[in-house]
């Protein structure tokens, strides 16, 4: 046999199956390009000139890892779909006398050609797009664009290594499939009728339990810190639930629809429902994948967009005053020294101080055992929803801060609740009790506590001695409470550059004075926030695009596979007297149900995840829930339009095959 026989046959096979292989090759190229680009950004020298290069690089590296893992799973899944559809072809080769090792040779050449084409084009496209990517990233994080072009060899090598590995894995799987397949199955295929899938009640129950538990966790998690740990568990449970319910639950629902005679015996429902019962078995995984990818796209894009847009809110929440000077464990003398430094530096820059918020306090973490009782907090209690932060100030500080003239006795307190609830008028700290003399409606420094991740209370007591007693009650380890903290926040009537300059001169002066305090400001931290939030936004868009690409391909393949499956069925329908119009309606009824089911499920997932996502966003300082809600609604809307366009375009392929 000619040595070029197998390579030629491989090329012919790819050409003959171009309807399936062209989208696959394009996806491979796209995935390779995106992986290269992401890794390129991690290594890019231009990023090195950013002040927040380390955190941005960590973020981008995380994106690279996610892209890499996703590439392995996605390309493996796509390849297995292709091979499944070509099994009959290989079975026929085998029956006609081709040995399995020869089929393996054809597969080797097919994989070789596809991998060479994809990897070369992918890396080349990646290199060409890399500058565009970095420009886009810099635009988002508002960083000056630099000139020049670079090709990090390490990025090229790692991309090559990863994708050669993926293609080798796919080849191994394909050859294994050929070796385990029996040619007789090809003959059986035409003779043995499909069996109606049984309603798998156990799987339906497992799916319902998993999904229900995932939703329950998402709805009942109150503490943002607990949300970090529990979110992953909830995601896994929802994923398992989705797979189980799409596999088993959908068959159960369709059978219920079939039993509803009013619905079932209508020309457009009859064929679609009966067909879908059989189809769900093979379609379930694809539909679950579309659902999970859609959920991921919507969540990623809406959260990152809301964080990016809401960055001003975040900055204002994090910095309720333009400039903040803060330190813990600081003596009265040092506090006065800080006041002097602030006064001197502001006057040197000719800046007027406004809206001063200044107080000495101490923060103690405690567990709110029952409604009004606080006990010592252990390290494990940080994930509890009862975790509370208590901020104590003396009445003198309070009077200075709020410009009032109140007095308290040693067993009295004023209480301001930033978050949480203390219903009783007696607060106890283990064995020490205070009666609430007055509940405060507002506090000058309120904003600062809005992002509290835990219950947060502001307690005003008569003296430092009382604070000491409470400290002794709530601390697990023995030790002196030390000095109080000092917070000095103020606004200034100066522009951005002056504010940045003021923060840096304040910090220098503080450092020179030997005090450990630090000065911060919204303007001076803006670039840091932009790097992180912009980086996250970029990552969200990037991964969102990658996941959308995957969703489109899965939808496309489903349309093709179903088109071939349905061709015969629709021919029969025409023969038994259904008009072309009725057939079209039936197709629409079926496809619409099947294709929009994952999207509906994705939106339901998001609705249940909404609360826990807002908790997680709180950890990232975003407390603007309406903003996130708007972003989520817009993302869903845009995604639905996009989904509908993809559906319409791929449905055309389906109609072509069927008709």
């Amino acid at each position: 046999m000619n040595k070029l026989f197998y390579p030629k046959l491989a090329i012919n096979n790819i050409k003959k199956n171009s309807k399936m292989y062209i989208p696959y090759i394009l996806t491979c190229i796209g995935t390779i390009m995106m992986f290269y680009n992401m890794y390129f950004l991690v290594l890019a020298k231009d990023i090195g000139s950013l002040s927040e290069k380390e955190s941005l690089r960590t973020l981008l590296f995380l994106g690279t890892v996610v892209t890499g893992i996703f590439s392995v799973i996605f390309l493996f899944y796509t390849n297995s779909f292709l091979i499944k559809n070509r099994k009959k072809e290989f079975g026929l080769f085998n029956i006609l006398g081709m040995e399995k090792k020869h089929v393996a040779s054809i597969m080797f050449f097919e994989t070789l050609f596809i991998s060479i084409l994809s990897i070369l084009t992918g890396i080349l496209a990646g290199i060409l797009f890399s500058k565009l990517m970095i420009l886009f990233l810099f635009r988002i994080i508002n960083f000056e664009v630099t000139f020049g072009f670079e090709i990090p060899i390490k990025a090229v090598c790692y991309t090559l290594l990863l994708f050669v590995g993926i293609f080798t894995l796919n080849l191994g799987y394909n050859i294994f499939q050929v070796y385990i397949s029996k040619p007789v199955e090809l003959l059986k295929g035409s003779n043995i009728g499909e069996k109606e899938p049984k309603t798998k009640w156990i799987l339906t129950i497992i799916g319902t339990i998993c999904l229900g538990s995932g939703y329950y966790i998402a709805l009942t998690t109150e503490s943002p810190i607990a949300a970090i740990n529990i979110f992953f568990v909830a995601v896994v449970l929802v994923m398992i639930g989705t797979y189980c319910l799409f596999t088993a639950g959908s068959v159960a629902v369709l059978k219920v629809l079939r039993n509803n005679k009013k619905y079932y015996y209508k020309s457009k429902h009859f064929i679609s429902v009966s067909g879908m019962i059989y189809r769900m078995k093979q379609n379930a995984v694809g539909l679950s994948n579309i659902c999970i990818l859609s959920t991921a796209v919507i969540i990623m894009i809406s959260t990152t967009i809301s964080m990016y847009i809401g960055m001003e809110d975040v900055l204002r929440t994090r910095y309720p005053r333009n400039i903040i000077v803060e330190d813990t464990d600081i003596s009265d003398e040092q506090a006065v020294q800080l006041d002097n430094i602030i006064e001197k530096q502001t006057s040197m820059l000719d800046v007027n101080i406004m809206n001063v918020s200044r107080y000495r306090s101490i923060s103690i973490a405690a567990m709110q055992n029952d409604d009004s009782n606080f006990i010592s907090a252990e390290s494990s209690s940080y994930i509890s929803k009862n975790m509370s932060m208590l901020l104590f100030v003396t009445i003198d500080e309070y009077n200075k801060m709020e410009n009032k003239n109140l007095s308290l006795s040693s067993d009295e307190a004023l209480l301001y609740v930033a978050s949480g609830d203390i219903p009783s008028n007696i607060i106890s700290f283990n064995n020490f009790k205070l009666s609430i003399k007055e509940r405060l409606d507002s506090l000058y420094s309120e904003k600062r506590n809005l992002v509290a991740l835990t219950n947060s209370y502001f307690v005003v007591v008569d003296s430092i001695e009382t604070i000491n007693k409470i400290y002794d009650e709530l601390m697990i380890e023995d030790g002196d409470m030390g000095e109080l903290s000092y917070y000095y926040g103020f606004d200034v009537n100066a522009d951005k550059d002056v504010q940045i300059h003021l923060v840096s001169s304040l910090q220098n002066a503080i450092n020179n004075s030997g005090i450990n305090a630090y000065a911060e400001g919204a303007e001076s931290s803006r670039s840091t926030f932009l790097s992180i939030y912009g980086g996250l936004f970029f990552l969200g868009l990037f991964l969102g695009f990658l996941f959308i690409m995957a969703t489109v391909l899965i939808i496309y393949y489903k349309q093709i596979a179903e088109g071939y499956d349905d061709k015969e069925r629709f021919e029969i329908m025409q023969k038994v007297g259904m008009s072309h119009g009725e057939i079209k309606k039936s197709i629409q009824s079926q496809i619409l149900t099947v294709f929009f089911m994952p999207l509906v499920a994705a939106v339901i997932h998001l609705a249940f995840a909404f609360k826990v996502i807002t908790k997680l966003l709180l950890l990232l300082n975003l407390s603007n829930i309406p903003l996130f809600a708007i972003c989520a609604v817009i993302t869903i809307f845009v995604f639905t339009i996009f989904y509908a366009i993809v559906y319409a375009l791929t449905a055309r392929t389906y109609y072509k095959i069927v008709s």
Partner: protein
Amino acid sequence: MSHLMKMKWNSEGIIMDKMISIKNLNKIYKAGSVEVHALKNVNLEIGYGEFIAIMGHSGSGKSTLMNILGCLDKPTDGQYLLDGISISKQNTDELSLIRNKKIGFVFQAFNLIPRTSVFKNVELPMIYAKTKPSQRKQRSLELLGKVGLTDRIHHLPNELSGGQKQRVAIARAMANNPPIILADEPTGNLDTQSSIEIMELFTNLHKEGNSIILVTHEPDIAEYADRVIVFKDGIIIEDRRKEGVQNNLA
């Protein structure tokens, strides 16, 4: 055709008049804890140049026998000799080779390679058999002429009618001049007229000396064969020859 013309000699120079010899053949399918005895102690001998129809209802064992005869499946126990070769002892690659050289398949669903021309479909088994290109071309054209498709050689399978597709499949089955043609419900997907045409084609091929075994559940189709074997519940319940047809087996 004389009896002697239908005989063959094996490598030791011994005359073989049995193309297929099956002794005490059993096939048991296991599905979990359930065992299905698809073939029970089947004994069968088929001579060179015979035209046989295997009949039976669904689940009678006829398709299982067809798969074993076609080297697509192995018996659970018993002996199957094809052209003097013990099939049970062959590995999968050797079976592929046997299928390529000794068996031509014709399926109910045609199973032509899609998006591949009629000519290429017929040529393919000869490529695997390492036939020279010039010979391949000549043989393909000859076979397509024989099945009456000379004017369709560059057409794709989806451009042909059912009857024409089955003719291509028959031409492909004949490509390597195999001693046996196995046809599994070859008229199952065809209308009456096309069925008659296909069966006439098989009759002509048989007259030219080819051995044909076809599986069918239609008595009209089975009537074209010289010998009819009827299966029920995995055993042969009838093995009759058409009147006037000589038994080649001693």
